[in-house]
C-alpha cells in the first residue's frame, strides 16, 4: 500500500511537554484520526509536518519526499485547516482568495466557487464578521480548491454546532471517495472519528500509544462492568484503566482471555468507544 505520509522517530522537546520518537504512516486514500487529550501534542505534530514548528529529530516524508528538502513543492499538494481562522480577517473572502490563489499551481476557481456556493458564504463581507462555523467553512474552501492530495486538519470540528460538524464530516467522506486524497484529522471529539476514520493514531504523553485500523481498535478494546466485590489486587492487573462507583466497577481491557479467566461470565463485556479508550488510558497514567 502506498503511503502519503510517513513520520519516523520525530521528537520535539518543550519545557512543558515533549514528543518522543513519534512514528506512523498514513496510506493513500484513507482518513486517519489523530486523537489525544488536550496538550498531548497533536497540534505540534501537525505543525511539524508543515514545518511551522521545527522538529528536534526524526524524519517526515510526504508523497515520498522529505520535508527537510522539498517542503515548498510538498505544500503545493497539501490543504491545511487550522482550528481557528488565521486569515487577514479585515478582508473579504474574495480579497483573501485573490491573495491565496496565485500561490497554487493547481488552483481551481470552479471548485472554489462550488464550495463557496455550497456553504453559502457571503463573499463581500469581512471574514471577521463570520461565525466560527463560517470561518471553518472558508478554511475548508481554501484547503480544497487547489486539488490537494493530503488534507491536514487541526481540530476542525471543535466548537462547531452539530449541523456544521456533520456537513464537514460528510464533505470529508466525499473528498476521499476518489481514493487520491488522504486526510489526517486531529481531534479530541472522538465520536466524529467513529463516523468517518479508517485509521486511528492515539498520542498519549508525547508518544504514539497505537496506530491501527479503527475497526481493529474497536474490536481489541472492550469495557468490563461488574460488581466491586469481584475485584482483587491480582485481577485488577488485567485492566488498562479501572473506575469504581456505588453501582459497581467498569474498566477498559484489551486482554479478553485474561478477563474471561479471572471473571468468567460474572461480568458484562461491552464494546469500548474511542472516548472510553482515551479516558481510561489517561486515568491509568494519572495513578
Amino acid at each position, binding site marked *: 500500500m502506498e503511503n502519503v505520509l510517513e513520520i519516523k522517530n520525530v521528537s520535539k522537546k518543550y519545557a512543558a511537554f515533549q514528543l518522543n520518537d513519534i512514528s506512523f504512516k498514513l496510506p493513500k486514500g484513507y482518513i486517519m484520526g489523530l486523537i489525544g487529550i488536550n496538550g498531548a501534542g497533536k497540534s505540534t505534530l501537525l505543525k511539524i509536518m508543515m514545518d511551522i514548528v521545527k522538529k528536534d529529530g526524526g524524519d517526515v516524508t510526504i508523497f515520498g519526499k522529505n520535508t527537510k528538502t522539498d517542503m515548498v513543492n510538498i505544500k503545493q499538494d497539501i490543504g491545511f485547516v487550522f482550528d481557528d481562522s488565521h486569515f487577514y480577517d479585515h478582508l473579504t473572502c474574495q480579497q483573501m482568495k*485573490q*491573495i491565496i490563489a496565485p500561490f497554487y499551481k493547481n488552483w481551481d476557481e470552479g471548485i472554489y466557487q462550488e464550495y463557496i456556493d455550497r456553504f453559502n458564504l457571503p463573499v463581500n463581507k469581512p471574514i471577521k464578521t463570520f461565525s466560527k462555523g463560517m470561518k471553518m467553512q472558508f478554511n475548508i474552501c481554501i484547503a480544497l480548491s487547489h486539488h490537494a492530495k493530503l488534507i491536514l486538519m487541526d481540530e476542525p470540528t471543535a466548537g462547531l454546532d452539530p449541523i456544521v460538524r456533520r456537513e464537514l464530516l460528510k464533505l470529508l467522506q466525499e473528498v476521499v471517495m476518489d481514493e487520491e486524497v488522504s486526510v489526517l484529522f486531529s481531534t479530541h471529539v472522538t465520536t466524529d472519528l467513529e463516523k468517518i476514520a479508517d485509521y486511528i493514531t492515539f498520542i498519549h504523553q508525547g508518544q504514539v500509544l497505537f496506530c491501527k485500523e479503527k475497526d481493529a481498535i474497536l474490536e481489541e478494546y472492550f469495557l468490563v462492568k461488574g460488581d466491586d466485590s469481584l475485584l482483587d489486587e491480582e485481577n485488577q492487573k488485567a485492566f488498562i484503566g479501572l473506575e469504581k462507583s456505588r453501582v459497581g466497577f467498569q474498566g477498559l481491557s484489551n486482554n479478553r482471555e485474561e478477563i474471561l479467566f479471572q471473571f468468567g461470565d460474572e461480568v458484562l463485556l461491552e464494546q469500548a468507544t474511542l472516548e472510553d479508550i482515551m479516558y481510561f488510558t489517561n486515568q491509568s497514567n494519572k495513578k
Partner: protein
Amino acid sequence: MLQLLNKEYHLSKKNYFLLFGLIIAFSGIFAYFHIKDIGEGIYIFSALLAFFIVIIGNMVGQQEEDSIYFLMTLPISRTTLVFTKYVSVLAVGVITWCSTSVVLMVIKQVVWEEIVKNSSMMTGLIWCCSLLMIMLAFVFPVYFAWGFKYVKMLMFIPIVLLSFSSAIAHSKWIEIIYRNAASYSVQTILFIGLIISFVMYAFSFFVSLLVVHKKSY
C-alpha cells in the same frame, strides 16, 4: 515571491493610496492658492509618516503576526518570506520617494533637473530614506524574532535617546565626527550614509533569515 508582493500590495494599497491622496490633495490646495514657499520639509515629513503607517500597520503589524500560521502553510520557503518583506519595504520606500518627488515637482512647478540641483530637496529625501532603512534594519530582526509586541517596545529607544540628546550632542565622539565630517560636502556625507544604511539593511536581512530559519511558530 511575486505572490507575496501581490499580498503586500493587497494589504497596503488602501492605506498607501489614502495617504498619497492626502498629500496630493494638500498639494492641490497649496497650488491653487499659489502658496509656493512652503518648504520641502512638510513633504518629506509626510512621506516619512506615510511610509511608517504603511510599514508598521501592514507589514510588521499585529495582524501580519497573527497570520504567520496561514502564511507558513502556503507553498513558499522561509527565505522567500523574509526576502519579500525586505524587498517590499524597499519598494514602498522607493515608491514613496518617487511620489514625493513628483508632488514636489508639481507644487514647486520645477523640472526634474532642478530637483536634482536643489540640494535641500534631494538631500532631504536621501536622508529620509537612509534613516528609514537604518531604523528598519533594527525593526525587522526584532519583529521576526519576538513579534510586534517587541517592535512597539523598540519604539521607546528613540524616545529614551532623546532624553540624553543634549549629552550625546556634546559628547566627545560627536565632536570628533563633526570635525571630520566638516571637510566633506553634504552630498558626500549623505551618500556615505546611504551606503551605510544599505549595508545595515542587508546585514539585518541575514540576521532575520537566520532567526526565521531556526524559529518554531
